[in-house]
């Protein structure tokens, strides 16, 4: 493994068709294998390469180098590489353990037979063929063919389901408070706009607010006018039961 061969992609992680992030192209070089880490992972998984022949220390070193040089946003990619690496290390560790002398799993009678050759099994094959022919003449009820009793219907459990959810909601942590990212308006700036909009002539609120406006706009305009009246910069007058506003005389 030569470290200078470890070239890393820093731009967006490579997402495979399955939505899985592929490990970064960390290059592995040894006498028996040369290629990216992902390929080594595949080869080992499919038993196409002997892991014992491949030194893993340089691969780990190269991984650390990759971590140091890569962008923080590539967390998925480095996680994918770590998973591949951890798998290789585990596989190698297992492979390096001495094999136990005797097989712990054994069938007493069957294993007593020697390795044998296919000839030894001719009779067994003939017998199985015969059994199969006999068996093919029998038909059983198809699976799930009994319709009179619905298989797994539990009455009213749907109520319990809803109750369970309701109960659990009571115990739930409140969701993190999310601030609403709307442009903040200050009342002061609103008051300025209102002052610009009103004149000495008395007009109704509808005439003052530039259309179109939202409910929120209306609330802000109204509050601003009230504040201006409080400060003595605006006045109001009642004409036939309708409120009209005007700028106060200087």
């Amino acid at each position: 493994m030569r470290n200078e061969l470890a070239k890393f992609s820093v731009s967006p992680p490579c997402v495979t068709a399955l939505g899985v992030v592929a490990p970064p192209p960390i290059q592995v070089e040894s006498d028996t294998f040369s290629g990216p880490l992902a390929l080594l992972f595949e080869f080992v998984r499919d038993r196409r390469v002997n892991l014992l022949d491949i030194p893993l220390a340089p691969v780990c070193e190269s991984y650390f180098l990759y971590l140091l040089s890569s962008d923080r946003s590539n967390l998925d990619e480095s996680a994918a590489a770590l998973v591949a690496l951890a798998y290789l290390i585990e596989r190698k560790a297992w492979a390096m353990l001495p094999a136990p002398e005797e097989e712990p799993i054994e069938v007493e009678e069957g294993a007593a037979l020697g390795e044998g050759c296919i000839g030894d099994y001719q009779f067994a094959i003939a017998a199985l063929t015969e059994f199969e022919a006999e068996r093919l003449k029998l038909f059983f009820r198809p699976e799930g063919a009994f319709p009179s009793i619905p298989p797994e219907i539990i009455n009213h459990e749907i109520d319990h389901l809803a109750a369970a959810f309701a109960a659990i909601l009571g115990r739930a942590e409140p969701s993190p408070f999310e601030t609403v990212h709307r442009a903040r308006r200050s009342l002061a700036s609103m008051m300025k706009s209102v002052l610009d909009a009103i004149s000495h002539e008395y007009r109704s609120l509808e005439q003052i607010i530039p259309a179109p406006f939202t409910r929120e706009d209306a609330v802000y305009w109204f509050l601003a006018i009230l504040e201006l009246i409080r400060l003595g910069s605006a006045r109001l007058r009642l004409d036939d039961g309708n409120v009209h506003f005007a700028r106060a005389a200087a």
Partner: protein
Amino acid sequence: MNLADELEAVLFAADAPASLEILAAALNYSEGQIAQGLEVLEARLEAKGGLQLVQIGGGYQLSTKPEYADSVARFLKPRPQRLSRSQLEVLAIVAYKQPVTLAEVDTIRGVQSDYGLRLLVERQLIEEVGRKMTPGRPLLYGTTDRFLHQFKLNSLEQLPPLTEDGKADLGKFNVL
């Protein structure tokens, strides 16, 4: 070997009601002959045994006699295992909040839920529906058609609505 017995064998192996027409075609008899054979079979079954011939959904089918319904139910019973309280909790969260990750279920329940989740996947009530596009790409779970079937729901919209204070509005929900 006779037609009534042949019909019994065929109907036994069928997984749905079989019409006169289909039976006649499969067994090389006329529909009239099949009808006669079925009459003989019906009479024999009525006189003896635990089975009967029923005419259902435009065809003929074997079924158990009603007097053995309890025995059959008792025999089939071990299968519909009730869900445990904790399984119900996990299922409820998945049903109402789907698609949802294991971590989200854990957070809502306040305890680890991976075991319950796995059991529900095994019972095919929930399944993986994708991956969340957040670090680690955790699996997302949702409910299955089997879930709808098991809870006698036609669609997820039939889940009882939850009111805002987190209590299920059971009154509005009409169990079929």
